[in-house]
């Protein structure tokens, strides 16, 4: 590809050597279609969303040049500015400035801009061009811009910026060939000079630039860009892995800040304004707007969907459909999986001779992993819905509506999305908190998210309701009402604790939120399915590794040490095992709640995953019945629980105990995977440990009050 005449090559050329494939970084505002373009270029499986900032992890893909040479492409988080305000944006800034040791500084940058909102998108592009690296500007969503009456002249924009500008419609694959051609070029031009730093600020920029070159080893051009950034950013948001600036640079920065504050100059506003002025001049040149525009389709849909009455009705309907699907539609595939796991287990039992290995396979591996895999349908359905809500643009509207109720407890609308996700599983919920800018708000959301009743509590609730209420005498609505009560308790707990934390541990100014509501789009089913499969696969991988390991360990704990008496009843065998002993040690602590050591085993094993309670009580209680020697007569678990007694003959699972146990599961923190993810996200052991303490402590205290009051009242 030959260079257009207006693009001049600078003296110093960045040539991608023949020995090494060039590294491209892909950057852009949230919702500019960057991720779709990344997928189209690399074919790598990756998530696409409409909610600002879904792309969070560092994603690296491989694309091929026109000549078949591989090129690396890093997909960076969406951001509005290099002056970072959230961990996401800090990652973007640090990678581009070469401050991260774990990621190579990209050789070239692909800057994706939304053509339908050129001014705002060019703000980031403008900062990127300052970095002095070769940049390719991709004008994405040209069709949307056209529909909105914006006629953009890419050639003119190319002339003004001095870098290649490629018009594109990523969603339809238009412009990809041209982009690949531009990426394949051995040499890319550097941007021409576009704007002058306002005169009062220029000396500070020069000062900081000199210091960055001298004390922080920055190349001069990067140093200038970083100096400009420091004046609007103050380097406040720091993330793990980025190298700190030298003391001398900090001193110079402090000196200038002090001086301006004395003079009353608002230098950061001046900088932003002068950049926007330059952008507006540029846009006046390249955009022609045709005719006055009436309200767009999105505006008309929003008139109903964020309406104070219709909006809430629609939101209620969406939530109802979501829960209905998770709890009813998922039942069919779940029963199917259950039946096949049981069949597999009995096949293994028949095919192998009795012994430890067989028990390990059936009671440990199949029961443990099967118990988790059975939730796959629910998780897939939830991810499908979340994907659908994100892909259509409705998720941001839901967050908008929920902002008001959330503000009552000191959080804002953006915290709603993680909490919603936590109804399925706290892990994706906690990962979704990364778009919350304020560190304190983010931490509070992480701390309360596991209180939302996740799908793993469902089997425990179901078992307890079944034990509590004889199946035929009680109408289904009563059971549903108890179930709903548990969900409501968890939700109230989450909101209550958020309120409490925001007033005590994490006191801060009222949260400020600004959130973009992207235009509505037709959902891209292929992207949603791709994302569903990707997440489902991650879940299965977890089940196949961590949970498999835990299941084996748990089986070992319930099987060893072996009771020396070979004629011992299974009950006595369990009591003799390590798990049994642990349960006995635990008994004094849980007896005031009405739980015995056998329930204690269930509580301990629940740390693997809450639903393990069901399989471990099945082991502990069902085997007792076999003690009588009638092997053929396997009592269903529910009946076994109803028959269980204390040593003095009193019933163990009284309705009060069943109810108390459910409340315990609503509040207690019993999930190792959540502990691990909280540790990773907060970068310390302090918060997961605090979370275990406050949640389990609350569970114990509430259950103590509930059980003792119930007893006193004669239940």
């Amino acid at each position: 590809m030959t260079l257009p005449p207006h693009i001049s090559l600078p003296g110093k050329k960045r040539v991608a050597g023949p020995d090494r494939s060039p590294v491209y970084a892909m950057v852009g505002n949230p919702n500019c279609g960057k991720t779709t373009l990344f997928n189209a270029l690399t074919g790598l499986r990756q998530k696409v969303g409409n909610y600002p900032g879904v792309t969070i992890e560092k994603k690296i893909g491989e694309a091929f040049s026109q000549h078949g040479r591989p090129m690396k492409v890093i997909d960076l988080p969406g951001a509005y500015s290099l002056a970072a305000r959230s961990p996401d944006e800090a990652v973007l800034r640090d990678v581009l400035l070469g401050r991260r040791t774990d990621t190579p500084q990209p050789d070239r940058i692909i800057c994706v801009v939304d053509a339908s909102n050129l001014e705002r998108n060019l703000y980031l592009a403008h900062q990127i061009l300052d970095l002095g690296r070769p940049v390719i500007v991709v004008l994405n969503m040209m069709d949307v811009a056209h529909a909105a009456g914006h006629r953009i002249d890419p050639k003119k924009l190319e002339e003004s910026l001095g870098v290649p500008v490629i018009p594109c419609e990523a969603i339809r694959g238009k412009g990809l060939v041209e982009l690949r051609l531009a990426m394949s070029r051995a040499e890319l031009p550097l941007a021409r000079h576009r704007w002058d730093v306002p005169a009062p600020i220029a000396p500070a920029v020069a000062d900081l630039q000199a210091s960055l070159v001298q004390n922080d080893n920055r190349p001069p051009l990067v140093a200038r860009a970083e100096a400009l950034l420091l004046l609007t950013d103050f380097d406040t948001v720091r993330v793990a892995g980025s190298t700190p600036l030298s003391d001398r640079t900090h001193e110079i920065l402090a000196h200038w800040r002090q001086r301006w504050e004395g003079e009353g100059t608002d230098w950061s506003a001046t900088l932003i304004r002068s950049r926007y002025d330059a952008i507006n001049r540029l846009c006046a040149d390249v955009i022609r707007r045709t005719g006055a525009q009436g309200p767009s389709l999105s505006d008309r849909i929003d008139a109903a969907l964020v309406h104070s009455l219709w909006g809430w009705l629609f939101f209620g309907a969406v939530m109802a459909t979501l829960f209905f699907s998770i709890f009813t539609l998922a039942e069919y595939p779940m029963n199917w999986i259950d039946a096949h796991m049981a069949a597999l287990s009995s096949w293994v039992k028949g095919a192998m001779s009795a012994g430890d290995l067989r028990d390990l396979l059936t009671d440990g591996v199949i029961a443990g992993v099967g118990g988790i895999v059975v939730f796959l349908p629910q998780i897939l359905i939830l991810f499908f819905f979340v994907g659908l809500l994100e892909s259509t643009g409705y998720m941001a509207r839901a967050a908008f509506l929920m902002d008001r109720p959330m503000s009552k407890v000191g959080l804002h609308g953006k915290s709603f999305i993680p909490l919603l996700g936590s109804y399925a599983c706290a892990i994706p919920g906690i990962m979704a908190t990364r778009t919350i800018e304020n560190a304190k708000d983010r931490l509070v959301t992480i701390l309360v998210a596991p209180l939302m009743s996740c799908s793993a509590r469902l089997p425990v609730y179901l078992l307890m309701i079944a034990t509590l209420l004889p199946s035929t005498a009680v109408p289904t609505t009563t059971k549903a009402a108890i179930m709903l009560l548990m969900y409501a308790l968890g939700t109230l707990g989450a909101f209550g604790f958020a309120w409490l934390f925001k007033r005590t541990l994490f006191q801060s100014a009222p949260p400020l939120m600004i959130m973009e509501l992207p235009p509505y789009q037709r959902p891209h089913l292929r992207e949603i399915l791709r994302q569903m499969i990707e997440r489902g696969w991650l879940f299965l991988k977890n089940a196949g590794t961590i949970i498999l390991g835990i299941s084996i360990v748990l089986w070992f704990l319930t099987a060893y040490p072996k009771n020396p008496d070979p004629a011992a009843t299974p009950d006595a065998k369990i009591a003799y095992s390590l798990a049994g002993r642990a349960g006995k040690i635990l008994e004094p602590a849980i007896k005031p709640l009405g739980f015995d050591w056998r329930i204690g085993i269930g509580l301990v094993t629940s740390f693997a995953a809450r639903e393990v309670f069901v399989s471990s009580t099945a082991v502990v209680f069902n085997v007792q019945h076999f003690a009588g020697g009638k092997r053929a007569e396997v009592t269903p678990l529910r009946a076994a629980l109803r028959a269980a007694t204390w040593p003095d003959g009193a019933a163990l699972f009284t309705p009060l105990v069943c109810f108390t146990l459910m409340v315990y599961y609503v509040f207690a923190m019993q999930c190792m995977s959540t502990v691990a993810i909280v540790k990773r996200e907060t970068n310390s052991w302090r918060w997961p440990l605090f979370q275990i303490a406050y949640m389990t402590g609350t569970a114990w205290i509430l259950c103590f009050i509930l059980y003792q009051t119930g007893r006193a009242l004669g239940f």
Partner: protein
Amino acid sequence: MSRSPFNLRLPLCQLAAGATGRICEITGDESFAQRLREMGFGEAALVTKISGTTTSLCHVNGTRLALNHDAAKSVLVELLPLGAR
């Protein structure tokens, strides 16, 4: 920024739905004010309120932006006559 005595200055949260204003001042948290400016929500920008009193939904520069109550309180706008846009 100069303002005519006839023009009413009010926080964005009090702007009526459908009304258009010109942003004249952003008060409060400095770093948040900066983010607003960087998103094109700076002084002199025209903003049209779509709906909301607690959480405001506005149109600025062709994008829909939602601000929560505390954020909208910190933005002072100058009411423009109908059809000024």
